[in-house]
């Protein structure tokens, strides 16, 4: 039996009739065609599917789309605002924190949530925060550098930039 749900994704509400078994990641990729969120595993290990659900980094393969009814979801496609890249995006490019780019959306989303909660992290805290996101290409070295560098930029411009999630329900 299809269910009527309305999930707000990147600021737009999408009322849709969906199967109750549909995963949030399938809803994003297949129902809405937002393919920037990736699927890398079937055991919730890789983090490639990470999106913000009400401001919180969430593995979209571990959640049903119906559970996101009424929620505010931000995907990689919604990270830049009016063409202005989020500091984490600039930092990933500047620090060469991506190679194939498959893990990258999930890692950046995880980092955004983390930096909003911990604006001045140590390297050890960064490494701990991203341990649920696997990257097979970069060895994490430059990802840690990018998150550190984004945190510095975000501290400097604190207040100037609205939080990524319009409304953060915690």
């Amino acid at each position, binding site marked *: 039996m299809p269910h009527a749900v309305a999930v707000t994704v990147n600021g737009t509400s999408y009322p849709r009739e969906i199967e109750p*078994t549909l995963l949030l990641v399938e809803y994003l*990729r*297949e129902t809405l*065609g*937002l*393919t*920037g*969120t*990736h*699927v*890398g*595993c*079937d*055991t919730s*290990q*890789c983090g*490639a599917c990470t999106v913000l659900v009400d401001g919180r980094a969430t593995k979209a393969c571990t959640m049903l789309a119906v559970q996101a009814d009424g929620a505010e979801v931000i*995907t*990689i*496609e919604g*990270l*830049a605002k009016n063409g202005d*890249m989020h500091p984490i*995006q600039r930092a*990933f*490019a*500047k620090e*060469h924190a*991506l*190679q*194939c*780019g*498959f*893990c*990258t*959306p999930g890692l*950046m989303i995880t980092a955004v949530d983390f930096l909003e909660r911990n604006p001045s992290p140590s*390297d050890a805290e*960064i*490494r*701990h925060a*991203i*341990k*649920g*996101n*696997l*990257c*097979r*290409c*970069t*060895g*994490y*070295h*430059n*990802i*840690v550098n990018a998150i550190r560098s984004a945190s510095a930029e975000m501290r400097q411009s604190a207040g100037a930039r609205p939080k990524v999630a319009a409304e953060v329900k915690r």
Partner: protein
Amino acid sequence: MTASTTPTYIGARVARKEDPRLITGEGTFTDDVTLPGMAYLTLVRSPHAHARIRRIDTTAAKKEPGVVAVFTGKDLEATGMLPVFITVPSMSGSKHMPIATDKARYAGDAVAAVVADSREAAKRAADLIAVDYEPLPIVVDAMKALEPGAPIVHEELGSNLVFTYPVKGGDIDKAFKDAEVKISQRIVNQRLIPNAIEPRAVTAKFEAGELTLWSTTQIPHFVQLIAALNLGLGQNKVRVIAPEVGGGFGSKLQVYAEELLVGFLAKTLGRPVKWTEERREGYLATIHGRDHVSDVELAAKRDGTILGLRVRTVANVGAYLQAFAPGIPTILHVFIVPGAYRIPAFDYEMRGAYTNTTPVDAYRGAGRPEAAYLIERMVDRLADEIRMDPAEVRRKNFIAADAFPFNTISGITYDSGNYEPALDRALAMADYKGFEKRRAEAKTRGNYRGIGISSYVEICGLAPSKVNAALGVGWGGYESARIRVHATGSVQVFTGTSPHGQGHETSWAQIAADALGISPNDIEVRHGDTFESPGMGVGTFGSRSLAVGGVAVHKAAEKVREKVVQIGAHLLEASPADVVVAGGKVFVKGVPEKAKNFGDISMAAYLANNLPEGMEPGLEATVYYDPPNFTFPFGTHIAEVEIDGETGTVQIVKYSACDDCGRQINPMIVEGQLHGGITQGIGQALYEGAVYDSDGQLLSGSMMEYHVPTAEDVPPFDLDSTETLTNTNPLGVKGIGEAGTIGSTPAAVNAVIDALSPLGIKHLDMPLTPEKLWRAIRASGEGRR
């Protein structure tokens, strides 16, 4: 370099052209391609590692709503066999069909296929297919597979022996007769699962007689070639596109069953078809890597001089030979085993064995990590035996800097090398001299601290086509490039390489920019579409892309530049020898104010009404570059570890490496390749390993049981480099894609064994998990209660 301009962009940390689309979610990966009317393929895979297929009942599956078609292996024989591109002497090749017809030879071997309107319907129907299996005796262990009476994987071959590959040099008997020290060691290089984070996927459509196939592949042209031949289509009617590819590491260096099946089904059913691998499925159905068991004997003098090396190895190839599998334990392994050392006598016999396990092929380094691990462990065993500093044993046996080009005892020629400076720099970076103090200090905390060195040499730049042929590689080792300058001066580079994270769009633009005197921003590099590129591209693997494909780009750009100079000289009424091409301008030396723009020249080339006498219009060039030799990068990696005396947990406290890959095009990308490679090598040393039970069931069958390193498992890396150019190619470049993986595994293991050597521990097999170390410490009697 032959460019008359000094390099501006080669050697610079140019920001990657790939990144803007990848950081915004705009990149298109294969599974992102969705077409109207698309159907989905699901494969039914054997749960048995070895079983005869008696009967397959598809009645119920066919009735399931949404099902388009159900096939067994017999229905799909028209797809032909899966290819093997390498034939080594004495090889006993296996018949490998996309869907098994007679029996399943490993758990995961496909036995039936379902196509449905949705993924869910396809999966539901797949569950309804009843296969009547007759289980057969199973062999998992490669050594056992070669014993008399072992279950035979391919009856028609009579035995599980795939090949015997002997390589000998010098007088091995004399080496052991003269030896003052003899060391024997069994060394296991465990099976690994590549785990590119993007699972494999294939999408295809067939329209107007033309097949378009998107695939997660490192070799789109080979997929095109085999799809055309096997499916009976003209090569001009098969377009293969490797869009964004989410890592490969050799696991996407195949023509896989699913590529032929999806192509065939799209053509047969007349609607687009997609297959996307699930991760657990990939653990079974995507190739594995490594899996060697070696018995090694080393002969040496008490002063540390190595006299000879004798090795007997069995390589597990799995249930079928995959595309490059015969070449990996042989060509890419045996010849490079002597490594950085002058070894007077060498005797290696490699045997391959079929088993009831997932096929084994190339995983990052492919044969060379196994070689570096073997020799670097033995050098440390020797150092331990004669109580000599492992750094000095290496130094003593290094091939001298003035000995290049150097003919190795295994019969190949190293192009260039200078091993001591890389060792010295790495030792300094690691504060090697101060180590014993740190060991003592760790001891006061109840911990074991160790330091491990690995000085590797590897082979890349596959390879001169004639050498390939002599070695049994069934295709040339060239690479192609085409450069097209449009009338307005915009430039496109089409490359036969197929990057999947290596940043060729950036590096190739840097190479072309220097030759053409323009900015990389004005150059677009296109790859991975067989309808755009030159007629054939060999692809991206074996750290060959730069040393072959990058050089092809350079040569094509030089050709274009030559024409730019000729046209410029004509328009400026000067001699070509006096014409300078730089900064987007073309001018006579010393008179930059009277310059023509690069775009004026390209426009002239296409207006074609004022060209030098006899010159063809247009401005483009295509090059197929066939290298004269391989290239041999090298370096020294040093790991320092601390092992928790209570738990056996290893922490890498410092990692230092000095690598030499010749000229670097983009040091930022070089470092990135090293970071990732080192992490994969550490993964093998400490965390990763495929485990089968005796029934051929893969126990490490998902990311939950198989530990891919996380950010907390690896340290930051301290990198430096030396630059020893090669004269194999005009750019002086070697290759860096696999060096990190090759160098790091022995460094990490040597460090752990060094830490435990005070307990009398001389060797442990990988992965060096906490449990294994805890047990070893306990068994030594030294562990605390």
